[in-house]
Each structure stands twice: as C-alpha cells, then as structure tokens.
C-alpha cells in the first residue's frame, strides 16, 4: 500500500479561507512572535518558503540506513516553523491549565496526567529547556490547546516538512555541510552534551533561522513510520504525508538527541518510536502522555500559511488524536 498521497488531510486546508493575519497580528510571511494568551510567554515562528528538495540520502552517504532512500524530489508548500524546540515553560501553561480537564477520555482538549516520576531526570525545566519525555499524542494535544488559545492552527511537521526545513536550501548531511568536526557548533549531541539536554537556541541556527534542529531533543513528526516510504513515494510528490494509522508505534522522529552520535544527527536519518520507550511504566494501559525511557524526545511546531477553517482544524486534530 502506498502510504503517501496528495490528499485527504491537507487539501481541505487549501480550500479554506486564508487566515486573517490582522486578527492575530501575523505580518505576511515574516517571522512573528506568538504570544500565549494569559501568560507573559511568547515564542518565535519563522517562515519556511515554498520550494523543493531531495528527500532522503544517497546510497553513498556514510552511515546511511536503507530506509533513507532512494532520494526523491519533493515539493513543499510554505509554512511557519517554531525557531526553537517547544520549551517546558510553554508546555507547562497547558499542563497546568486548571480550566481544562486532566487525562479525560472524552474531552476534546485535556491535559496530561501527572508524571509518576520526574521525567526531566533533573536536566532542567524552567527558563528555556525543551519539554521532553512526551508522547506524540501529548505533543499533538498541546497543538490543539494552543489552537483554542490563539486561534492559530499549529501542528507537528510532516516528515517531509521537517527535512525540508532542516536542509534550508542545503543538500548536505548536516545543514552547514558534511564535516562532522564542525557539528559541535550547531548541535548538542553525545560529544558535547554531557548526556543532558540544554536550553534551546544556544547553538548556531540553519539558514532559515531554525535552532537545534539537530541534536538536543529529537523531534516528533506527524508521520507514521514506513520503512519503504521513499521507495513508494510518487515522482514529484507535493506535501507528502503518511496515511493516518491509529496504532501508536512506530512514528517518525527526526534530528537525533543529546545522547546520539553524529551519524544519528544526519538530516536524512529516520528514528522510529518504539514500545520500549515506555517499558518502565508499570501500569497497563501505559501512559498515553509520557515516555519513561523517552528522555531525548521533544518536538517543535509548524503552522501552514494557508490556514484551515476552525472546522477543518478540529477535524484534523480529531483524526490524529482520535477524538
């Protein structure tokens, strides 16, 4: 089965009314600061222009895995992406929002259950550390909460969007080139992280102003993992994404984390989520929200230029979150 197609989820957005920029103070396709209402916090979104790139890696790339090829040309529509990984400060506004239910099976927007133990493992919380140890569902629920708070549609990037944004016009293994000895300037990874994540934005960004795309925490994408994704991808695919699959595993993450080596930080590297990331959750059902062994897992946001209607946005969340 071809898991990639043009269709269902995103095409409705193209038909939707163009988002009212004035209403939300977003100037046309420039960086903007999104304030989270009711807090003093805001986060920066930067424009990722429409374009095309070669997705995947060549068979000659060092440390390359089978599932990264064959490389194919992919077209991507314009979107905004958060300049930094979502921070724990921002996530906590949702996590501690007393106006919504906690861990409800029925409510459309509900916040995560309490962490059984501290899943930052002492690496840092307040003042700019990335949120970590969370499931893809928890990340998507944060997007939904943010949509209800701001009226702006946020979601996880597709795998193609993430990879395109990370390259930022480059065609090299890392967005700055291929020289591993330079990686420490751009990323927190096993050689410089002291085995912990760091405050976001301390390393050099890529050409489009995106920080920590490589290393620090690996980042959830929207896509279900398919080993033959590139093989099955149609020629000149536009905005490809994986079919929505209800099973929790495996989903695709990108970028690698603080505990990974340089090979795992290559842009084309695909990480697939695994049930063992929750092996030390002693309960069944296991937590929908948290990962006991997912200390390297975080995420960042995207927002498409062509915004969906509220109905379309809610249909999107329902499709991915399941309610």
């Amino acid at each position, binding site marked *: 089965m071809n898991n990639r197609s043009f269709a269902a989820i995103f095409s409705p957005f193209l038909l939707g009314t163009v988002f009212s920029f004035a209403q939300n103070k977003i100037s046309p396709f420039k960086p903007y600061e999104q304030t989270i209402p009711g807090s003093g916090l805001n986060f920066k979104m930067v424009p990722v222009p429409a374009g095309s790139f070669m997705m995947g890696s060549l068979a000659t790339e060092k440390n390359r*895995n089978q599932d990264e090829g064959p490389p194919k040309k992919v077209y991507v529509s314009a979107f905004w992406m958060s300049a930094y990984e979502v921070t724990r400060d921002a996530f*906590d506004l949702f996590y*501690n929002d007393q106006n919504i239910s*906690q*861990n409800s099976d029925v409510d459309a927007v509900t916040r995560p*259950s*309490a*962490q*059984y*133990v*501290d899943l*930052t*493992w*002492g690496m840092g*919380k307040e003042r700019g550390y990335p949120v970590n140890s969370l499931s893809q569902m928890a990340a998507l629920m944060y997007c939904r909460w943010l949509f209800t708070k701001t009226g702006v549609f946020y979601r996880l990037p597709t795998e193609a969007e993430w990879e395109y944004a990370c390259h930022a016009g480059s065609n090299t293994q890392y967005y700055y080139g291929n020289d591993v000895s330079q990686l420490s300037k751009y990323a927190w990874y*096993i050689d410089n992280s002291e*085995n912990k994540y760091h405050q976001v934005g301390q390393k050099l960004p890529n050409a489009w102003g995106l920080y920590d795309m490589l290393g620090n925490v*690996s980042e959830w994408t929207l896509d279900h993992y398919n080993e033959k994704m590139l093989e099955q991808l149609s020629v000149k695919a536009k905005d490809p994404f994986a079919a929505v699959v209800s*099973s*929790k*595993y495996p989903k695709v*993450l990108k970028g*690698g*984390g603080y*505990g*990974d*080596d340089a090979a*795992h930080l290559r842009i084309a590297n695909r*990480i*697939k*989520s*695994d*049930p*063992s*990331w929750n*092996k*030390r*959750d*002693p*309960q*069944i*059902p*296991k937590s929908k929200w948290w990962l006991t*062994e*997912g*200390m*390297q*897992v975080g995420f960042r946001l995207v927002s498409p230029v062509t915004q969906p209607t509220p109905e379309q946005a809610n249909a999107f969340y329902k499709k991915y979150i399941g309610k």
Partner: protein
Amino acid sequence: MKKSLINHRASRREFVKQTGLLAGGLVAAPLLADANFFTNVDDTIKIALIGCGGRGTGAAAQALSTKHNVKLVAMCDAFRDNLDNCYSALNADDWSDITGRSESLKKKIEVPEANKFTGFDGYKKAMALADVVILTTPPGFRPIHFEEAIDQGKHVFMEKPVATDPAGIQKVLASAAKAKQKKLNVVVGLQRHYQNSYRELFKRKDLIGDITSAQAWWNNDGVWVRARKAGQTEMEYQMRNWYYFVWLCGDHITEQHIHNLDVVNWFKGGYPVKAQGMGGREVRKGKDNGEIFDHHYVEFEYADGSILNSQCRHIPGTMSRVDELLIGTKGKIRCGKADITDGKGNVLYQYDKKSENDPYQTEHDELFEAIAKSEYKFADAENGAKSTMTSILGRMATYSGQLIEWDKAINSGLNLQPKLYAWEAAPSTLPNAEGFYPVAVPGVTRFS
C-alpha cells in the same frame, strides 16, 4: 555513556547474538521435551490476580510474559468494571503497542465467568484456584490478602506497600514467618531490588565505607483524583478515590516514598529506631483530597546514630526529584546518576545505563523461574513489612509532630481498618457536613 537512547536498529553483532541464542534453543529443546515425556507432569503454573487496576493489569501481563508455562486462571476485584477492563486489556488481539511484539497473551488466559470474583470476599475463592497469587489491590487490604495466600500455601507477588498501619504490619510479619516455614516464594514490588543499576551499586557499596547519612526524595506533582459520583456509598467512594484515605493508601509517604526509604534501609542493612518530622497540606486540600498530607519531611535515625533525611511532596510547580543519596565515610552513592564518588568527587564507579533492565519484568522472571524449578529463593515479605513500617513511622511523626520510636510504634496496635468490609459499612474516617474529612494536626494529633 549511551550512544543512542532512542535508536533501536539492531546491529550486526546483536543480530548474530540473537541467532546464536536461537541455535542454543534448538539444541536444548529436545531435552526439555524428553523430561516432560518421562515425568508426564502438567507443569502449568496457575495464577490468580487479586486487584485488577492499572498496576494489577501490568503485573499480570508481566507474569504472563515470563518464559514459563503460566496461565491466568482467576481474577478478583472489588469492582466488576475494573475486572472487566483488566480482562479485556489482557485479552487484546495485538500486544504490539505495549511490548513491541504482535503476539497476544490470549492463550495464557483461561478465566471463565465462574472464576471472576468481585466484592470484599472474592479473593479467597480466587486464590484457591491458583499456585501463585498476585496481590495488587490498594495496600490497606494487603495484610489480610497476604495472610490468606500463605494460609492457602500459595507463592506470592505483592505490590508495595504491604500495609497502612502497625496492626497490618504485625499481620504481614506473622505471615512472612509462616511463608518461610512453608518455603513459599514471596516477591514484593520494591522493584529497585530487581533493577540492574541498584544491584550493581549495592555490590560496590563498601567503596564508600560506613554509611553515616542519607537523603531520600519523592518530590513530584502528585497523582489522579476520582471525584465523588452520585449514588456511591461512602465506602464505595473511598474505595474508588483510595489514594486520599490513609486506611487504604497509607498517605503518599507510604504509597510512593517507601521506594526511596527502602533503598536506604537496604544499603544500611537495618531500619530506623526513631523519627521526627513535619508535614501538612498546603495546596491539595479539596473535598476530593480526603485526609492525606501533600508534603512530609522526616529525620529518621538508625541505631548507630546515622541520619536519613527524607522528603516527599505532591505539589505541582515545585522542584521535582525522585532519588536517593547515600553518604559514607569514604564517598557517596548517587542512585539516580548510578555512580559512586570518593570524598573529592572523583568517580569510582559509573553504572552503564545502557544495561538497565525493566525491573518490573525481572521481578516476575525471577519469581516464576524459581517456582518452575521448585526452588525456594525469595522471602521479601519481612523487608517489605519493615520498609513499609519505616514509612508509617515517618507518617506518625509528621502527623503528630512528636518524636516517634520504632518499637513503640510497631507495637502500638494502631489499626485504621473498618470494623466491617461491606459497601454499606462505615469506613474509619467520615466527612463532615461540608464534605471535608478530618486531617491530622501536628501538636494535636497523638499516637500514644
């Protein structure tokens, strides 16, 4: 150092290793088959699950995931809906979202309707059908359930804590002695004893000389709340929202922080002789928060004068830490970091966290292996009771604000259990007209 915490592509070496194991298995298999052929014994180990909540479901799944010939034959929960949810979760067609393997546990589950028991008394009949019982109800029931299991001659896996009051501790200690006489294996879910990093640190504890002080933390956001529903009797409400009632839960110092206190007892090789401390409820004090505190700070003292400073807190937005630190005459053991340092901070030993296991699974792997081989290897109940008592001692200290001595406390006869276990019966604590429960007040609450 971890090369990759989250990338699970099997390396060539791992692949070869797995293939090697498979080959070994093929050689060994005929021998096992012969053994069965000649002895002609049904080696099925039958399991009864008492307490079908999230942890009970997890424990049953772990027991059924061991490599032995095991079968779940009976289930019991006070509530039928809990039992049904557990039964359907265990019978899921595809287990891959939990274990990563698609096979189901179905063929190891044989619990006909007649073997599903509910209410307060069902446990006796459920246990009678099994060789091994899993005790995972709220801890208030553990003493009577453990007593029955041992009286019936069953091996036991039971979750911590093993009681909520000193009378319960005495009952568990008496049953633990009987279990030893009968050579019944008992594993208690203080899973750090079954976790590789802790085991390796324990082996090397002499590197830090004599332990003179320790710190223990369970500071975190807290747990779920189950609001009162129309039509519930007081007993049903408390059973549903059990975390907030001391007779059922023991307070969070007992229900969670026991893990950290137990580690210190384990490394110290003993139990405190007295405790004093402070605590209260600062933010968690609604109608559905029952009677427990949201923070405790206790100074425990061991017979040799060494001190354990213990803190546990359930307050969102505060510093989180779940950990233990042991300080000796020659250095420190930092359990969370899994390392041992000397007095100057030089690392003497660092456990490689890549080798960390799933201790919840290991508990069952080791217990069921001993049972399958007819070995008597596990007698965890006495330590389980004494580490539980440590946490109760701390609670008595924070509730009263007095210095509490171990010997007096454990022999106090303090019993929080209701006189009668029935849906219409009155629990030992009741709400006032506004729906609030009496809460301990240091300086006023007494245990003498």
